[in-house]
């Protein structure tokens, strides 16, 4: 290094090697922990959202404006199949599907259960939901077929039926008339999501509309974006297309599953509280070390000032030293963190009790951290920032130093 100041700063750090390593050690510890933890968080949030949305609700839904708060049969959209087709054409997106929803009491030979019954567009439904692909026994609905039904695995077990059995149902239709019919179970799905497996069944939209006297109506048009990041843009496009249409509302998944975003927010908040505590503790460590380092060099600083160095120059030196130390902690911390996280991302991570919690949030039993540029640098970046902030006090003290006093110091 040509620059003497740089050499000086670096060597000053190693006057007390153990002290510097201990301070850097605190940074490495925190950084490693932060990289791992944040990667784990991001990985699981992503998965949680994807799994929850792709199972059933999709990213956006068009509904009757009152349907979200009051999901009644009467709050319906007219011409739902045609609208969905038009939307597919105008957006150039095939992952759009129409649905209708109702409630019936269904009876098998041995049992009766209430269940939610959905009329779906069997051709497009697989593009908005993973459910059609999760058929455990039998097959999914054939497009256009009448009187076919697929039901959830828990429901099937409770009703004691298998593919091929018949189910009769009874409910109320759009005009308050009786909706009744007999359908054949063609398939049983297992999503792993308790609510769906326990209470949901699907029939073809056309059959539903007939059985429930809906005519051409339905309750929602489900839109699935190619990727979660594309949702906002899609939302804007659809809103523009809708224009002033007041009989239809576009619902974001945030409204469809409010718990989801909030659960993530709550988790993030509590995690960040913990992270901040760690960062503060590291900053204290840096403050301690740098303050001691400055105080024990008082005489030396006095000499330097006698030579004509201004206090600001000395302060710069201290900040430079802190910066080098922080840089060391940053690099080593990110490296160690990345290594550990990468390893875990291959083998997965699990702790006792996690499996049960995972089920509640649509997560798999082992978690896999997701390494990204942000997850690698966010935590360590803030640690670095906090450490540099901590050096401000010792550096400021130098401003008040008078050469005479410094040189007289013991």
């Amino acid at each position, binding site marked *: 290094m040509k620059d003497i*100041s740089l050499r000086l700063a670096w060597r000053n750090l190693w006057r007390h090697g153990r002290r510097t390593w201990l301070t850097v050690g605190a940074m490495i510890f925190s950084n490693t922990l932060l990289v791992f933890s944040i990667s784990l968080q991001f990985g699981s949030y992503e998965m949680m959202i994807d799994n929850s949305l792709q199972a059933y609700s999709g990213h956006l839904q068009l509904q009757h404006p009152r349907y979200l708060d009051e999901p009644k049969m009467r709050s319906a959209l007219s011409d739902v199949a045609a609208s969905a087709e038009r939307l597919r054409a105008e957006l150039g997106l095939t992952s759009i599907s129409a649905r209708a929803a109702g409630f019936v009491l269904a009876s098998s030979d041995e049992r009766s259960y209430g269940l939610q019954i959905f009329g779906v567009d069997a051709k497009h439904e697989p593009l908005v939901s993973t459910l059609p692909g999760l058929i455990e026994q039998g097959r999914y609905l054939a497009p256009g077929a009448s009187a076919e039904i697929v039901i959830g695995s828990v429901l099937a077990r409770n009703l004691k039926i298998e593919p091929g059995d018949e189910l009769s149902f009874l409910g109320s239709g759009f005009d308050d008339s009786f909706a009744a019919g007999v359908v054949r179970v063609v398939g049983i799905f297992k999503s792993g999501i308790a609510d769906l497996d326990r209470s949901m069944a699907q029939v073809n939209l056309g059959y539903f509309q007939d059985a429930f006297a809906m005519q051409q109506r339905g309750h929602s048009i489900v839109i699935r974006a190619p990727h979660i990041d594309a949702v906002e843009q899609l939302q804007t496009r659809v809103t523009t297309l809708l224009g002033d249409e007041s009989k239809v509302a576009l619902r974001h998944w945030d409204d469809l599953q409010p718990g989801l975003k909030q659960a993530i927010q709550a988790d993030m908040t509590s995690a960040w509280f913990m992270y901040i505590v760690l960062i503060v503790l590291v900053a204290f460590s840096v403050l301690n070390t740098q303050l001691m380092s400055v105080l024990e060099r008082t005489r*030396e600083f006095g*000499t330097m000032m*006698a030579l*004509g160095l*201004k206090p600001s120059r000395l302060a710069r030196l201290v900040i430079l030293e802190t910066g080098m130390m922080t840089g060391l902690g940053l690099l080593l911390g990110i490296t160690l963190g990345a290594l550990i996280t990468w390893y875990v991302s291959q083998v997965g991570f699990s702790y006792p009790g996690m499996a049960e919690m995972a089920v509640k949030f649509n997560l798999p039993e082992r978690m896999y951290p997701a390494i990204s540029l942000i997850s690698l640098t966010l935590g360590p970046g803030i640690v670095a920032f906090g450490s540099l902030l901590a050096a401000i006090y010792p550096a400021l003290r130098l401003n008040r130093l008078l050469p*005479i006093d410094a040189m007289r110091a013991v």
Partner: protein
Amino acid sequence: MSAIHCHQLCKTFTQGDAVITGLDHVDITIEEGEFVCLSGPSGSGKTTLLNAIGGLDTPDSGEIRMGDIRIDQLDRGSLADMRLHHIGFVFQAYNLIPVLSAQENVEFVMQVQGVAAEKRAHKAAAILKEVGLEGMEDRRPAQLSGGQQQRVAVARAIVSHPDLVLADEPTANLDSVAADHLMGLFSELNEHHRITFVIATHDKRVMSYARRLIRMQDGKIISDEAQ
């Protein structure tokens, strides 16, 4: 360098309950190229006067003038600049930065002064050679004797051709031989480079080198003789 004029300098310190007089209405003029010794017992005021002239300490009252500049009225930043470019200091101890080599100690000041990197190395080596430390450029202070350390301090003090070198008890930690060598070096620099030297000391060996000897006591100048 213009002459330094000090007029009616006063400075007092408080230590606990006691009030100590550092300088008591001191008047003095130092011309360019002089080799002056300030002598006197501890507490006589010689260090205080030295610090005042060098801008390290401001007197309570009185004037210090170098040409047109009122040194006692300069702000800290300007004083620092003055010390950086025009005045060299050599102290009794703790002169050097322990983690830098002899050469780096000299180069460090030059870097702060703004000298370009290539020139620095060359000049630093040359000046170290001039003070008799050729071959020791890469040694750290801990690897140098007391006398050698002081010589590095001198090298650093003169490398930018200051007008004035102020030395405070420079030989206090040295044995006779080293003290002699150091004072010889001072004389040589004074003669060849026309650098003004003001040295505070109570070491008789040092005083014998002075061409002008100013004795102080209790903050007052009691004698001022050429010798």
